[in-house]
C-alpha cells in the first residue's frame, strides 16, 4: 500500500519546503537550518530507494550514513562561520553580504 512513490513524494515535499525556506530567509542561520532540512529530505529519498529497489546491497543506506556525517560536519562549520560573522557585522541582514557583487 505504501509504495516507493509515497516516500518519494514526501521527500520532494520536504525538499521543496526546504528550498523555499532557504530562498526566503533573511537570517543566515535560518538558511543553514533549512539546508539541513533539504539534506534530510535527500536522505529520505535515498533510504526509500535503498529499501525498495535494492535492499540486499544497501547502497542507499550507506550513502545516507555518509551523508549524515558530511551534513554534520558542514553544519558545524557553517555555524562557526556564522558565529564569526556575527562578531564583525550584522549577520541577520544576509542581503548585506555582497562581496561577490559583480
Amino acid at each position, binding site marked *: *500500500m*505504501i*509504495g*516507493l512513490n509515497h516516500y518519494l*513524494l*514526501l521527500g*520532494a*515535499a*520536504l*525538499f*521543496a*519546503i526546504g*528550498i*523555499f*525556506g532557504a*530562498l*526566503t*530567509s*533573511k*537570517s543566515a*542561520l*535560518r538558511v543553514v*537550518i*533549512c539546508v*539541513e*532540512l533539504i539534506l*534530510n529530505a535527500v*536522505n*529520505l529519498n535515498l*533510504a526509500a530507494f*535503498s*529499501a*525498495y*529497489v*535494492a*535492499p*540486499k*546491497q*544497501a547502497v542507499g*543506506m*550507506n550513502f545516507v*550514513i*555518509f551523508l*549524515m*556525517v*558530511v551534513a*554534520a*560536519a558542514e*553544519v*558545524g*562549520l557553517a*555555524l*562557526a*562561520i556564522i*558565529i*564569526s560573522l*556575527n562578531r564583525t557585522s550584522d*549577520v541577520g*541582514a544576509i*542581503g548585506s553580504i555582497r562581496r561577490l557583487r559583480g
Partner: protein
Amino acid sequence: MTTAILFYFYAAIAIAGALGLVSATKLLHGVLSLFATLIAMGGLYLLLGMEFLAAMQLFVYGGAITILVMFALMLSGPEAEEVHVTGVRLRWLPSIISAVLFVAIALVVWQAKWDVVAPHALDTQAIATILFSRYVLPFEIAGLSLTIALIGAVVIARQDDMVGVVYETAAEPDPEEPYRHHSEDEEAAK
C-alpha cells in the same frame, strides 16, 4: 495497514515541522519544529526497516545537530530574532519556484516505472560487514573530514584574544644579550 497509518502520521509530523520552521517568527521556535521533523524522519526510517539508520538519525540529527544549532543560536545574539521578511525582493518567485519544483518531481516520480521489490530489512551485522569491507575507505575519509571540520570550526569561531589558548606566551628575547655573552666570554678568556 499499520504501516500506512504510521506513515501518514510520521509524514504529517514531518511536514508540519518543516512548515513550522519556515513560517516561524522566532528562530528558536523554528528549530524546535525542525526537531520534530527530524524525529519523525527517524520513525520513517524505522518503517523502511532501517533500524540503524533510524538510531543514527535520532543521535546525530535529533541530538547533536539540534543542540549545536541551538548553541549557535544562543551565541549569535539578538539578530536571530527577526521578522519573517525575506532579503530577496521578489518573495512570490521562490514560492512559485518551490511549487513548480515539487510538481515537477511529483510528475516524474508518478510517471516513472520503478523496479520495486518488497522491503527487506537488514540486520546490523550485515550493515557493519558492508560498511567495513566494501565502504571502508569512505568511512575513514568521513572520519577524517569530521576531524577537519572540527578543527576548522574551532579556528573559524575563535576570538583574537584567545591566542594564548593555543600557544604558550613566550618572553621577547633580549636583542643585545647574545653579544654581551660573547664579550663576557672573551673577557673571561683573556
